[in-house]
C-alpha cells in the first residue's frame, strides 16, 4: 500500500536540490571510474568547493531579504573570507606539489632509479650508497645545479646554470667523495645538500596527467647513516607529504645479508614516517634470475617470498598499519638495463655507443638472442640494431610495468596526500565559520521573541551545564587509565612496588579500549608499548655484535642498527674491541670470565691495561648505544605522536558527535587539525654505566725458607739445611674479569631500570597532552556557545517576529542553513 503525504514548496525545493546534488555526485563517481586522470580528481574538488560558495551566495541573497542591515557587516566578512579561502583552494588544487622520495637498501640501485626517473645519468651512482647527503631534483626546462653551503664543507658550493648532465654528475661526485673521505676525520662535517633543476623524464614521458601547475620534484634520500645531520633531517621532514619509492636489492643471496636488508627496509619506512601505503616497493636487479635454468619459476618464487618477507617484517614492526601493509604495492625492476635502454636511444652518438658497450658487457644475458645478429664491436651497431637492443633491455627490465605501476600509485595516493589538507584549511579559514553562522543565526531568530528568548537563554545555560558535564566525564574516561599508569610507574621508581612497567602500559591500553569510543582504535595505540621492544632489539643487536666479536676474536660490527650510529664512534669501539682481543680477552675468557690476580709488575700492567680497555669498552658502548637509541627513539617518538593523534582524533570525533546531540543546531565542531596536534615534543634521555673494578688485594707468595734441622738420615747427629715453604703477604691487584654474559646482563638490567624513567616521561607527557586538549576543547566549546548567546541577544534586540512570519520564512530558512552546513561537512568526507 502506498502511503501519501504532503510536502510544502520549501521542502520540495530542498528535495530537488538534494536530488540534483546526488545526480552530480553519481556522475562524478562514474567519471572518476572511467578516467584515471589525476587532474580530473582535482577539478572535481574545485567544482565542489565552488558549488559550496554558490550555495552560500544563494543563501546569503535569500537571508538578506529578511534580515536587518545590521547583519550585513558580519555576513560580508564571511563572504570575503570565503572568497579568500576559495582562491587559496583553487590555487592549491591547480598548483599542488608532487614529491617523489627515493630511498633504498644497500646496493639496491637507488641512484640508478633516480637517474631512470630523470632519463639521464646525473646522480653519482658509485658513491651514493654511502649516504652522501640528500639531492633534490626540481622539474625545470633549464638545467642548473646548486650545491648549498653547509658547515665545514670542503667542496665547492654555489650555483651553476645551463650545465650539462656530465657536469652535474661530476660536481656532485666531487662533493660527495670529499664528504665521504673527510667525515671520519671531522665528525661534525655536514653532508652536502644539493638541488638540481632538470627536465626529468618522469614528467615528460609518463603521461601522469597531473593538474597543469603541479610542481614535481624528486628527493633522492641518503641511506641509513645520516646520523645527526640537520640538512638531511630537514629533507626527510619533507617526506611526510611525499610518495616514496623504496628499492630493495634482489641480487643479494646471502641469508644473513637478506635479513639485514629487510631490517634496513623497515628502518627506512619508519624514518619516512606515516603509512606504508604511500610507499611503492621496488624489487630491483630482478634480471639476476634470468641466468637461472629454471627462470621464470625462480624469479616468481623470489618475488613471492620477498613480498611475504617484507610484509612480515613491516607487520612485526609497524603493527598499527596491519591493514595498509596487507595492500602494499611491490613491483619488479632492473634499473640499470632500463636506464641503458634510454641512453642507447639518445641521438648523442658517443653517449649511445657507450651505453651499448655497457649493455654488452653487463647484460649479455638479456640481449643474447639479438647479439647473434650484431657485429662484435658495439661501435658498429647500426641505429636499427641499437633500437632492437634498447627494446629488449626495456622489456626484460620490466621498465614499462614499473612506469605503469608508478603512475597508478601516484594516481591513487597523490590526491589523498594533498586534497584533505586543502579542504581542512578551507574549512578552518571559512567553512566552519559559515556553517556556524548560518545554523546559529537562523536558530537565534526563531527564538528571538521575548518569551522564546528567555526560554532559550535558560536552554543555553542547561546546554552549558550538560556539555561541561559530558566533556568532564569524557576527559576523565580518557585520562583515568593514564593516571593509573602514572601512579604505578611512580611507585616503581620509588621502589615501592615491582610492577613491570610495560605490562602496566598494556593494561592501560586494554582498560582504555574497553569503552566507547576507543574500542574502534584496534591496534592503533600499540606504539605506546612497542617502542620498548625496538629499544631492546637495538640494544641486543649492538651487544650481540660486541659479544660475538669478543668471543670469536674477529671484530665485526656490521649490523643494521650499528650502521645508524656515528661512523667515528663505531670505529673507536671497533679499535677498542681489537685491543681487548689482543690482550687475550677473547674465546673462553670472554665466554666465562675469569678471576685475575696480578703479582708482578708486568702482570699488573697487563691487568691495568685490560681494566682500562674494559672501562673504555663501557664508554664506547655507552656512546654507540646512545647513538643507536637516539635513532630508534626518533622513529618511535614519531609513532607515539601518530598514536596520540589517532587517539585524540577518535576522542574529538566522539565529542563532536555527542556534543551536537546535546546541543543541536549550534554547529559544534572540534577540528582535529587544530586540536589533535600534539603540542610539546616528547624526548627520551638515557644514560648507562658499566665497567669493572680492580681491588687492591693481598696474596701470599710461597717462599722457601732455609732451616737447619736434624734429619733422620743424619741419625739426628748432623744438622741439614732444608727448605720449607712459607707464605709472605704481598700486595696485588685483583680483578674479576666479567664474562660477556655478565656484561650483557648488566646492560640489560640497566636498560630495564631506564625503562621506568622512560615510561614515566611518556605518562607525564600524555597527561600533559590530555590536559591541554581538554583546555582547548573547553575553550572552543565555550566560544561557540558564547557566539550563539551573542547571536540570540542580537536577534532578541533587533528582530520582531510574528508567528506567521516565523513559520513561513524562518523555519524553511533554518532547514536551508542546516542543508548548507551538511554540504560543507560532506566535502570533507566524500571529496
Amino acid at each position, binding site marked *: 500500500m502506498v502511503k501519501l503525504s504532503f510536502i510544502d514548496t520549501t521542502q520540495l525545493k530542498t528535495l530537488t536540490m538534494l536530488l540534483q546534488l546526488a545526480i552530480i555526485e553519481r556522475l562524478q563517481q562514474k567519471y572518476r571510474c572511467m578516467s584515471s586522470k589525476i587532474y580530473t580528481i582535482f577539478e572535481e574538488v574545485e567544482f565542489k568547493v565552488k558549488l559550496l560558495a554558490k550555495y552560500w551566495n544563494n543563501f546569503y541573497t535569500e537571508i538578506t531579504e529578511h534580515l536587518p542591515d545590521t547583519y550585513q557587516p558580519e555576513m560580508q566578512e564571511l563572504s570575503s573570507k570565503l572568497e579568500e579561502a576559495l582562491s587559496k583552494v583553487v590555487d592549491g588544487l591547480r598548483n599542488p606539489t608532487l614529491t617523489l622520495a627515493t630511498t633504498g637498501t644497500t646496493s639496491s640501485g637507488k641512484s640508478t632509479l633516480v637517474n631512470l626517473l630523470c632519463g639521464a645519468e646525473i646522480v653519482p651512482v658509485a658513491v651514493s650508497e654511502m649516504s652522501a647527503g640528500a639531492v633534490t631534483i626540481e622539474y625545470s626546462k633549464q638545467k642548473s645545479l646548486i650545491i648549498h653551503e653547509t658547515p665545514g664543507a670542503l667542496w665547492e658550493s654555489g650555483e651553476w646554470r645551463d650545465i650539462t648532465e656530465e657536469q652535474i654528475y661530476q660536481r656532485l661526485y666531487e662533493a660527495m667523495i670529499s664528504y665521504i673521505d673527510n667525515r671520519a676525520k671531522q665528525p661534525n662535517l655536514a653532508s652536502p645538500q644539493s638541488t638540481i633543476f632538470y627536465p626529468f623524464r618522469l614528467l615528460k614521458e609518463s603521461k601522469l596527467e597531473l593538474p597543469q601547475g603541479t610542481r614535481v620534484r624528486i628527493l633522492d634520500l641518503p641511506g641509513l647513516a645520516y646520523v645527526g645531520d640537520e640538512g638531511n633531517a630537514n629533507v626527510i621532514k619533507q617526506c611526510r607529504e611525499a610518495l616514496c619509492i623504496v628499492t630493495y636489492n634482489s641480487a643479494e643471496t646471502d641469508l644473513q645479508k637478506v635479513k639485514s636488508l629487510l631490517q634496513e627496509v623497515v628502518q627506512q619506512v619508519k624514518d619516512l614516517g606515516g603509512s606504508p601505503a604511500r610507499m611503492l616497493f621496488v624489487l630491483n636487479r630482478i634480471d639476476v634470475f634470468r641466468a637461472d635454468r629454471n627462470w621464470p619459476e625462480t624469479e616468481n618464487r623470489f618475488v613471492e617470498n620477498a613480498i611475504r618477507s617484507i*610484509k*612480515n617484517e613491516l*607487520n*612485526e614492526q609497524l*603493527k598499527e598499519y*596491519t591493514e595498509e*601493509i596487507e595492500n602494499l604495492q611491490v613491483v619488479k625492476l632492473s634499473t640499470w638495463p632500463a636506464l641503458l635502454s634510454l641512453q642507447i636511444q639518445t641521438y648523442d652518438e658517443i653517449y649511445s655507443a657507450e651505453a651499448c658497450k655497457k649493455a654488452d658487457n653487463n647484460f649479455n644475458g638479456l640481449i643474447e638472442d639479438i647479439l647473434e645478429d650484431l657485429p662484435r664491436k658495439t661501435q658498429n651497431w647500426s641505429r636499427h640494431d641499437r633500437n632492437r637492443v634498447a627494446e629488449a633491455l626495456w622489456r626484460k627490465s620490466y621498465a614499462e610495468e614499473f612506469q605503469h605501476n608508478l603512475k597508478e600509485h601516484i594516481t591513487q595516493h597523490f590526491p589523498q596526500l594533498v586534497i584533505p589538507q586543502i579542504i581542512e584549511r578551507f574549512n578552518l579559514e571559512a567553512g566552519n565559520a559559515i556553517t556556524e553562522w548560518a545554523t546559529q543565526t537562523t536558530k537565534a531568530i526563531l527564538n528571538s521573541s521575548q518569551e522564546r528568548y528567555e526560554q532559550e537563554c535558560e536552554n543555553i545555560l542547561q546546554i552549558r551545564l550538560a556539555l561541561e558535564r559530558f566533556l568532564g566525564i569524557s576527559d576523565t574516561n580518557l585520562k583515568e587509565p593514564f593516571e593509573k599508569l602514572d601512579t604505578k610507574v611512580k611507585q616503581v621508581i620509588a621502589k615501592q612496588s615491582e610492577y*613491570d612497567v*610495560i*605490562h602496566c602500559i*598494556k*593494561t592501560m*591500553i*586494554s582498560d582504555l*579500549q574497553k569503552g566507547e569510543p576507543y574500542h574502534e582504535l584496534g*591496534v592503533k595505540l*600499540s606504539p605506546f608499548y612497542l617502542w620498548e*621492544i625496538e629499544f*631492546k*632489539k637495538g640494544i*641486543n643487536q649492538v*651487544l*650481540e655484535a660486541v*659479544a*660475538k666479536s669478543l*668471543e670469536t676474536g674477529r671484530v665485526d660490527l656490521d649490523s643494521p642498527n650499528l650502521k645508524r650510529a656515528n661512523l667515528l664512534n663505531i670505529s673507536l669501539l671497533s679499535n677498542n674491541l681489537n685491543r681487548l682481543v*689482543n*690482550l*687475550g*680477552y677473547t674465546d*673462553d*675468557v670472554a665466554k*666465562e*670470565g*675469569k*678471576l*685475575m*690476580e*696480578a*703479582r708482578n709488575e*708486568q*702482570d699488573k700492567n*697487563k*691487568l691495568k691495561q685490560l681494566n682500562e680497555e674494559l672501562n673504555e669498552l663501557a664508554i664506547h658502548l655507552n656512546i654507540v648505544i646512545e647513538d643507536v637509541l637516539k635513532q630508534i627513539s626518533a622513529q618511535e617518538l614519531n609513532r607515539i605522536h601518530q598514536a596520540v593523534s589517532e587517539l585524540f582524533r577518535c576522542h574529538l570525533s566522539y565529542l563532536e558527535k555527542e556534543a551536537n546531540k546535546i546541543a543541536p543546531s549550534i554547529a559544534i565542531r572540534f577540528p582535529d587539525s587544530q586540536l589533535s596536534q600534539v603540542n610539546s615534543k616528547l624526548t627520551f634521555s638515557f644514560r648507562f654505566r658499566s665497567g669493572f673494578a680492580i681491588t687492591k688485594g693481598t*696474596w*701470599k*707468595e*710461597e717462599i722457601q725458607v732455609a732451616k737447619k734441622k736434624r734429619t733422620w738420615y743424619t741419625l739426628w747427629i748432623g744438622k741439614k739445611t732444608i727448605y720449607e715453604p712459607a*707464605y709472605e703477604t704481598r700486595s696485588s691487584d685483583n680483578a674479576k674479569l666479567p664474562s*660477556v*654474559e655478565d656484561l*650483557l*646482563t648488566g646492560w*640489560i638490567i640497566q636498560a630495564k631500570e631506564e625503562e621506568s624513567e622512560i615510561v614515566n616521561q611518556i605518562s607525564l607527557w600524555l597527561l600533559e597532552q590530555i590536559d591541554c586538549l581538554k583546555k582547548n576543547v573547553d575553550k572552543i566549546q565555550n566560544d561557540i556557545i558564547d557566539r550563539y548567546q551573542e547571536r540570540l541577544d542580537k536577534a532578541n534586540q533587533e528582530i520582531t517576529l510574528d508567528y506567521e512570519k516565523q513559520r513561513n520564512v524562518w523555519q524553511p530558512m533554518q532547514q536551508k542553513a542546516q542543508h548548507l552546513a551538511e554540504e560543507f561537512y560532506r566535502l570533507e568526507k566524500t571529496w
Partner: protein
Amino acid sequence: MDWRKLLSPKKNVEEPRKIQLSDSSPPRQKVLKPVALYLVVPASEVGNLRENNQINVSDIEKLIDNSLYFLCTSLENADATQQHLQQHLELTTKIFITVSEQRELYIRININNGEEMIGKKVPYILKRNLPHDGQCIVKELACIRYLSVSGLEKFNRV
C-alpha cells in the same frame, strides 16, 4: 701473545682460580639435561610451525631474535611453569593461522641437551648455548589475547 700465560699466577693459596683455563685434561662428556624453552613471538614469525613437529636450530634462533618474552627451564621445572601458564595465560584460539599478524603466539619447544640454556636472561647467550646436536620439538603453540600480559610474569621480557 698468550695472555693467559703472562698473567697466570704462580700458585695462589688464598683463593683458588674458579676457572681452570689451562686445564689440559680432556673434557669429560657431560650428559646435558633436556629443557623447555618458552617463547612469545609475533604471529608473523611463526611460519609453518606445527605442534609436535621438529624445529631446527636456525629457526629457533630466528624465533629468539624476534621473541618478545622468553623463558628456559629444566624439564623437571617445566610442569610447574606449564601449570601456571595454563591457569593464567589468556589464549584466544588454537587456529592461529587465521589470526591476524598483530597477534602474539606462545610457543613451547622441548630441547634435548639444552641444559646450558636454563635461566639465561640474554637472548644472545640463549642462542649461543643452543645445542647444535639436540632434538627440538614444538610441544605447544597458542595465540595470546591482544594486550594480555597475565601468566608472563616470570618470563624475561626482551
